[in-house]
């Protein structure tokens, strides 16, 4: 029961996080490419409840109109005007899930004011918005690669476990080979092979598919193990006795028994591939500007002055930790539940 609760909790958190990313356009006050050159490296915006005239409001307001580069001097926050934060404001248009166009943002302030929840980067782009939009790219990479790995694993593991004999031997030896490969280096080699002039989307898709295809061996081994025991179960043997074809047996009786392993593998592989994408992009080998990804958000930290002077540039990195924690908790709980179910 405790495990079920752990799993439900993790899944709820995960859903919340994912919908935040999926509806990035709504939750983000700005577009990911919107620049404000007057506001490079602005600190996270302070919210005020007392306006310059000393009146107390329940609606917070922001007072950061002037150039942040002159901020060292006096009167930075004393522009005299306080821009209140509004909810459900009209702003730049965006698409929800690539389909519907909308103008409504969860929150925002009137134009001369700014609201940078997580500060802004070197071009005055809102870090919070970029984090949400970047999540779309990074999570998509993880999802596509994980689906590719698991489906490859399902096909190979299913065939190897079901038919056995030399097919099994050959496929599993091949799998060992793939497991032993230094895959990050190989991924780099593949990146080196890509022509430099193809579009960002092509680079992204190619990298993601290569990542997914290299990683088939581990799920294949696990799925093969389940298939080996599944095909010996009485009802499967009985169905075979009634003359069921191999395809029917696999589809109807054997593979459904591997779903538990597949789901667990998915929850383990997604964060792994998200990290792989983040690492590649961080090193300048993944998706490039202007497409935001969690890797490109972190890559500015490679410059010493950014690292040591602007602490808020670290926030995206710190936000990744709870996300991965939730993923691993879900995977843990799934693994335990799965173990107790099969035993």
């Amino acid at each position, binding site marked *: 029961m405790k495990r079920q609760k752990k799993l439900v909790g993790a899944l709820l958190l995960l859903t919340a996080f994912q919908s935040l990313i999926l509806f990035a356009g709504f939750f983000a006050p700005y577009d990911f490419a919107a620049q404000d050159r007057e506001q490079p490296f602005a600190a996270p915006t302070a919210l005020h409840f007392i306006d310059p005239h000393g009146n107390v409001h329940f609606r917070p307001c922001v007072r950061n109109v002037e150039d942040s580069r002159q901020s060292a001097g006096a009167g930075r926050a004393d522009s005299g005007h306080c821009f209140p934060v509004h909810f459900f404001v009209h702003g730049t248009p965006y698409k929800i899930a690539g389909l519907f166009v909308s103008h409504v943002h969860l929150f925002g302030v009137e134009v001369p004011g700014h609201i940078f929840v997580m500060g802004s980067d070197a071009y005055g782009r809102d870090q919070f918005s970029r984090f949400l939009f970047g999540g779309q790219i990074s999570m998509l990479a993880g999802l596509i690669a994980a689906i590719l790995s698991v489906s490859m694993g399902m096909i190979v593991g299913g065939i190897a476990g079901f038919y056995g004999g030399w097919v099994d031997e050959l496929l599993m030896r091949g799998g*060992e080979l793939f497991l032993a490969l*230094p895959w990050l280096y*190989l991924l780099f*080699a593949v990146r080196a092979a890509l022509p*430099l002039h193809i579009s960002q989307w092509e680079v992204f898709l190619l990298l993601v598919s290569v990542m997914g295809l290299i990683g088939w061996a581990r799920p294949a081994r696990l799925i093969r193990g389940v298939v080996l025991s599944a095909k010996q179960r009485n009802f499967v043997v009985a169905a075979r006795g009634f003359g069921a074809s191999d395809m029917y047996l696999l589809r109807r009786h054997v593979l459904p028994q591997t779903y538990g392993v597949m789901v667990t593998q998915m929850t383990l592989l997604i964060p792994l591939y998200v990290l792989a994408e983040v690492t590649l992009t961080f*090193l300048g080998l993944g998706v490039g500007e202007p497409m935001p990804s969690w890797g490109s958000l972190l890559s500015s930290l490679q410059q010493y002055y950014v690292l*040591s002077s602007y602490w808020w540039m670290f926030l995206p*990195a710190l936000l990744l930790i709870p996300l991965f924690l939730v993923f691993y908790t879900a995977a843990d709980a799934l693994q335990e539940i799965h173990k107790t179910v099969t035993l």
Partner: protein
Amino acid sequence: MKYFARRLFHATLLLLAVSIFSFAILQLTPGDFFAPMGLNPQISSRTVAGLRSQYGLDRPLPVRYGHWLQDVLKGDLGRSFAYNSPVTPLLAVRARNTLLLTGTAMLLAWLIAIPLGMWSAVHRGKWGDRVGGVVTSGLLAVPDLVVFLVLLLVAVRTGWFPSGGMVSPAFNDLNVWNKLKDVAEHLFLPALGLAIATLPTMLRHVRSAMIEVLEAPFIQAARAHGIAEWRVRFRYALPVAANPLISLFGFSVGTMLSASLLVEVILSWPGIGPLLVDAILAKDVYVVIGAVMLSSIFLVVGNLFADILLFATDPRIRVE
């Protein structure tokens, strides 16, 4: 002996597969190191073609692979286009640095993981073990990248440690003792980062392996015979728990290599990592292949070493 022969055969097969794979994908795709020169109006197309034939890029792929393999067997990994020098000495220096880093980190990680893992296995379920469990799962969720960036931040902000490189500018004027001290200072942060990155997995494995062994009947028997507890743990339990740990060591060479690539770039340790990233961006094919091959060799040697260790420590394998 048959066991070793089979292992060795597998290792060779693996290396061959890696070489064919990386050679094929790198050479089959359009564009090479000299492609950008073709766009330059100051360089005639004859010069570019001449350079290509000088480096053998105009011959068919299997021929090139054959030549390359022949050269590799003689210890020559080809020529770097960007450095205009043979790849082998270039990589050798970098490989030495990477080995120094990963070796130190490996030692550090195991020195922490074994006592700590044993301790939490013995005190299983007590608060110390629980806190340890929470901390390790927490650490597991921290991406390596973030660990390394935090270390870089520490180096930059405090100035206690050098923030990059392997030696100080004045290295050549130092005496032997100070030279060692200088390298150790530079080595500390990257090695610590690598150790932190690999520690959580190791700790978990050591703990679960020890728990399994401590529950075995022969341990109870040993305790019932009145053998001292420390002797039971170190002399009886640890050698039995060593088997899965040695296999883990073989695996961890791979993770260590991947992680070291990143730490080398972030903390500018002059290992294979930064060289590889630059070579990829410049399409310096033979350097890329050489680096990939070298890392596979490290991996294979690590695994072979683990196999030999297993063979030496576990009599059950010898019976097989």
